[in-house]
């Protein structure tokens, strides 16, 4: 069920948030330059006037935005995100996660059974707010429904909902509830406690959320599991959690993993059910030299794992490095795609995307990268 043409281009998740949106929400002054920035991007990406004009009127206030005004600014940010991706030429879009704080905090804040303790460092001056799982995880609300309704109303391209998976939510939480039930803290006891927490989140939180999305019309859902290979011994129950999350549901479900050794996924991922696609990071580890030989494409060496294990799934091929301002030339994107086609043996199995969310790049850099991704896919189609 990929889009009609070969090598459809999709986003993976987060985009940088515009300065005016960040400042307004953080109660910091919005300047005339911020307003001009909104105008310039609106012109570039085709944001409609019925979004831009009320936004500019609101932003001109500069500070002291009311709750209702902030809601309108968030909505406008989502329209900007959608149009940004569509005008870059993507076939499958979302809103750049403009409504979400962060991929862990957002769902945990909207589920029961967790207690936030404070921030911990991810690296350097980057942090995330970390919670303990203090009781049985429970569904409180379908936390992506508003987004989906909004995107469905405003998007012209196919929407795809990214949702953080159960394993990652479990791995990034302190497991208190299930560990407290164990008689010791042995490795085996901790493993079992983690399995119980992961499956409880899948059953009680993620599945009801995905059911709600499917009921509301979602056709594509991407389950984000950046933590999946962190602990190889836990991959089998991460697979169980995915299956529990989507079992029997209708739609195209994909699994996004990044910055990982994908060899650790096998053979366990062969047991995934109702998973049509892996969206994986490769560009980060690749050379920037053009070429379609294995020597020129070292970052894509692990593509061969699919063939070695007889894994028939499609690949969301990461062709943009999200941690670098290097703008991949279309020819490099083309060669990465053609190499993947050669390894997988079927061009219909290749969807193209950035390695991960582009939130750490500037709007300017991310846009140039996405435009070249689309041009590279066109070149690859022409080459075939």
């Amino acid at each position, binding site marked *: 069920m990929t889009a009609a043409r070969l090598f459809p281009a999709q986003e993976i998740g987060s985009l940088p948030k515009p300065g005016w949106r960040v400042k307004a929400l953080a109660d910091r002054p919005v300047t005339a330059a911020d307003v001009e920035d909104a105008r310039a991007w609106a012109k570039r990406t085709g944001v409609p006037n019925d979004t831009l004009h009320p936004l500019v009127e609101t932003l001109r206030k500069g500070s002291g935005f009311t709750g209702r005004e902030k809601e309108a600014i968030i909505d406008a940010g989502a329209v900007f995100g959608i149009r940004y991706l569509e005008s870059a030429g993507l076939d499958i879009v979302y809103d750049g996660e403009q409504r979400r704080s962060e991929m862990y905090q957002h769902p945990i804040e909207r589920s029961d059974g967790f207690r936030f303790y*404070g921030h911990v460092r991810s690296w350097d001056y980057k942090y995330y707010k970390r919670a303990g799982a203090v009781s049985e995880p429970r569904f409180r609300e379908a936390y992506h429904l508003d987004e989906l309704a909004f995107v469905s109303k405003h998007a012209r391209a196919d929407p795809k909902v990214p949702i953080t998976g159960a394993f990652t939510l479990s791995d990034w939480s302190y497991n208190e509830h299930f560990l407290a039930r164990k008689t010791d803290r042995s*490795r085996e006891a901790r493993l079992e406690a983690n399995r119980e927490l992961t499956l409880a989140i899948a059953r009680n939180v993620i599945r009801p959320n995905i059911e709600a999305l499917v009921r509301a019309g979602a056709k594509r859902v991407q389950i984000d599991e950046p933590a999946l290979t962190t602990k190889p011994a836990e991959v089998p129950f991460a697979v169980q959690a995915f299956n529990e999350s989507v079992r029997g549901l209708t739609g195209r479900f994909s699994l996004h993993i990044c910055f990982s050794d994908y060899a650790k996924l096998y053979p366990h991922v062969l047991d995934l059910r109702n998973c049509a696609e892996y969206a994986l990071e490769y560009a980060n580890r690749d050379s920037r030299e053009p070429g379609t030989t294995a020597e020129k494409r070292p970052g894509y060496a692990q593509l061969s794992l699919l063939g070695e294990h007889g894994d028939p799934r499609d690949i969301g091929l990461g062709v943009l490095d999200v941690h670098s301002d290097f703008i991949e030339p279309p020819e490099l994107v083309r060669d990465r795609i053609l190499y993947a086609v050669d390894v997988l043996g079927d061009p219909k199995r290749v969807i193209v995307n950035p390695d991960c969310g582009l939130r750490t790049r500037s709007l300017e850099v991310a846009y140039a990268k996405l435009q070249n991704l689309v041009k590279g896919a066109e070149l690859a189609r022409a080459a075939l």
Partner: protein
Amino acid sequence: MPKPVRLGLTGIHPRSEAFIQVSRDFDRGRATKQDLEAALSREVADVVRLQGDLKFDAVTDGLYRFQDLFRPFSERAKGLTVGALTRWFDNNTFYKQPVVSAAPQFDGKAIAPYAPSGTPPAGAGWKAVLPGPVTFARLAEDRYFKDEEKLVLSLASDVLNPAVRELARQGFRFVQLNEPAIVTSAAEDFGFLNEAIEAVFAGVSGPETAVHTFFGDATPYLEGLFGLEVDFVGFDLLETPGAALREFGGVEQGIIAGVVDGRNSFLEDPRDVAKTARELYDLAGDPGLVLAPNTDLEFLPLDLATRKVERLAEAREALLTEVRA
């Protein structure tokens, strides 16, 4: 005469919410370098005070100036550069991979900006925590030697030794090498590990020395670890069963007992901690026992970490009461 029972921190300490805000502001250009430095000084003062109040014998500065365990060296050593963002073992915490592209060389004085200065709390000395040479080598990207043994020995002699010599010159009381890679990726050859550890501490007198392991079960490596020429060997007792150490028997070195979990919010009962420590007390050699978190505490928010450190001190009191009885 009972053996000493001391307290120690294992590595990088968590940052306060106040510092986190300043550092985020700095990162986004909304705070100055001076703001950051002032906030950093407050963090250091707080963690030093905490250790002083709890009667730590060797006190760290929380390693607040280390963005990761390797950064002072990958930023300052010749032949090394700061590389790609990489996962720190099986944590949702990342380090920047040191890239070795020429023969490494470190001027020992370059460690000064990263190390504590001034007067430690009354009765205490400064403690330094540095990467062990095996962990350093295994987590680096080697574009120069393309030979693990050569890289390990060069990092030991040309990078870590000059730093340790400088710390010794400054009067540091305790120097600990963190070596998680020994127990997580298997140290097949303790011959060159021993040589490397000796090279790190060559020509150094004064500070007590330690190699601490964590994130993995050290049981298969006990003989090699206790063969190292250091005063203390450390274990993550969540991963390494106490029974394995008891079975190994008494040793000459002191033992760093990683008895509180730096990766879970669950607060340990000091009586349970004391009970675990009691079993190791008899095994330890004359240097005695250091009760410590199994890992760096930076995987926890500061408030939880502080409570864990306080429980460590309570456990020591309970253990000392029992030993004296």
